[in-house]
């Protein structure tokens, strides 16, 4: 697996305030979700990646280069920060094109690229109108268009979905999937964990400037062995099922719902449980009709790690 971003003992302080502390992380291609509470250091990390700020300590390499004040590298990165900074007097198309001109594209090329970027974010209808009249969601998408208009290999997006309506959210998620299929690497931060999870398994979780977890959600969850896994089932005869489950010595607790159908168990070894359950269900014939793991997702991982 090739390495897109590699940070070693990366730290950045603002005076005495910590932005990022001792972060060692490797990010590969594809989509990676950067998650953490407010003030965790996500934006600091992103600024370090694009070379907007210099690390206080440690090192970072992006696409094999040191990013700080590296203009050549900057051309390979698309960056969409959170701040709503747009020129209201320009049209969306002009705005995107003006950045491309700054990056060295010719007038015609810049315009053509601006048009196609605006189309990709579904703003083709509005691209000839002044940015000042755009809604919040449209401004957000214009900024995204600006960050994907050039030939980049890595896209960094900070909370790209905030304030977007469901249709726009859906389209943006599609756009990220599509970029990934085109072979781009995407690092995106979001507070809406299930949306991150719908895009990617790979996450980097930071909290108070520290790395708390990296890797796929599934693997990370396995590492949290001190939190027994919960499994929820529904069955026609939940009591018989519960009785049978009690015989597994990895099952720690069983809870029966009041509706007379639901049963929740806690197990220290969910792998074995899933291995053994089919035979148990087949023999018991207790009418098992559904099975799910409510705490196997990113939301649960986040909850357990951040609290």
């Amino acid at each position, binding site marked *: 697996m090739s390495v897109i971003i590699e940070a070693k003992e990366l730290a950045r302080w603002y005076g005495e305030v910590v932005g990022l502390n001792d972060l060692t992380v490797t990010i590969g291609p594809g989509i990676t979700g950067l998650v953490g509470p407010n003030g965790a250091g996500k934006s600091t990390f992103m600024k370090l990646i694009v070379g907007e700020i210099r690390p206080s300590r440690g090192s970072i390499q992006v696409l094999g280069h040191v990013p700080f004040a590296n203009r050549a590298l900057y051309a390979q990165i698309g960056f969409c920060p959170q701040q709503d900074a747009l020129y209201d007097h320009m049209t969306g198309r002009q705005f995107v094109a003006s950045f491309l001109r700054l990056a060295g594209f010719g007038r015609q090329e810049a315009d053509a690229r601006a048009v196609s970027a605006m189309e990709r974010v579904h703003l083709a209808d509005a691209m000839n109108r002044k940015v000042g009249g755009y809604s919040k969601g449209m401004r957000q998408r214009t900024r995204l268009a600006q960050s994907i208009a050039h030939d980049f290999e890595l896209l960094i997006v900070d909370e790209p979905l905030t304030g977007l309506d469901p249709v726009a959210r859906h389209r943006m998620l599609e*756009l990220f999937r599509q970029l990934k299929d085109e072979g781009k690497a995407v690092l995106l931060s979001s*507070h809406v964990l299930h949306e991150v999870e719908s895009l990617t398994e790979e996450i980097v979780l930071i909290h108070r400037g520290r790395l708390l977890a990296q890797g796929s959600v599934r693997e990370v969850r396995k590492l949290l062995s001190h939190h027994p896994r919960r499994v929820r089932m529904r069955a026609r005869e939940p009591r018989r099922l519960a009785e049978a489950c009690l015989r597994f010595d990895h099952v720690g607790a069983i809870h029966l719902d009041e509706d007379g159908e639901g049963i929740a168990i806690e197990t220290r070894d969910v792998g074995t449980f899933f291995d053994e359950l*089919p035979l148990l269900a087949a023999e018991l014939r207790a009418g*098992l*009709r559904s099975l799910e793991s409510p705490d196997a997702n990113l939301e649960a991982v986040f*909850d357990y790690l951040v609290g």
Partner: protein
Amino acid sequence: MSGAPPIISLDKLVKRFGKVQALDGVTVDVPQGAVGLLGPNGAGKTTMIKLLLGLLVPTKGKANIAGFRPKKRSHRLAVRRVVGYMPEGDCLLPDMSAVELVSTLGRITGLTREDAMTRSHEVLDYVELEEARYRKLDQYSTGMKQRLKLAQALVHDPKILLLDEPTNGLDPKGRRHMLTLIDDLGRKQGKNVLLCSHLLHDVESTCDYVVVMNKGRVIQQGAVADMTGGDNLRLVVSYEGASEDFARALGDAGFRHESRGERELVIELETAVDDADDIFAAAAQARIAITSLDRVRSTLEEVFLKAVGEHESHGALAPTNGAPAKGGGFDDGSNNGAASA
């Protein structure tokens, strides 16, 4: 839910601003309990909220909000005594403290000075704003501001709560807290919550009923359970183990099935059966571990996107298979490949 009279009932409601038709004949009965109001931007949700608050007078049609008719001027003010509103934006005056803000707004609604103080602390306790309630609001985090906005909407203990994007800008922890509060208000405290949110996942987890608007009309409404209820002839199964073995075992047991992505398949049933014991038996035979099993359900997001005419989604969490993309643009060719890659 079916027995109780609707808390809000609108009949062919029209609202025009000059030439713009913001509401174009809205007919809806909003049941008691927690209800989600959904729609893309510009669907008319904001106009609807303003009408419910008595801030606007309908151009045509009838409206009944908890027994009040906003066409009458006296009712327009009176309706605000039974409605609590949590606005979307950052609307808090920075020089006030939380207690001051909540009690002032409570007194404007009609609480006596003593009641206003009691209620302010009551609701601030409820949203878990601790000592911070005495501090000035300019030091508040987004999460605290959102909770304070909820508290001020609750101070006069209204029957109806209008919540506009209450989870906007919150981090996961703050969002979960807010959702717990909304869930509690709607399901345990007997408030009639009308929740507007772009995060359909949040609506799904807190509301029992949704109303979907688009272009000034109500295009779909119903119980969340019915909309996402799922198909009792199709089951979706995630598993671990050799897929060929599982497929063979299922085939032997007489199940038609198709694979949907890695380690996931959909089983079609001939007749609705009450349990999946036979599927577990097939898995046991093939030494397969089943990690999840349920009816094929749509998420609220899929229901919503379909309703507003956006092309079939391949979903937030559960990819649906085989639906051809209707729209152009995004989905050319790459619709189904992305999710499983």
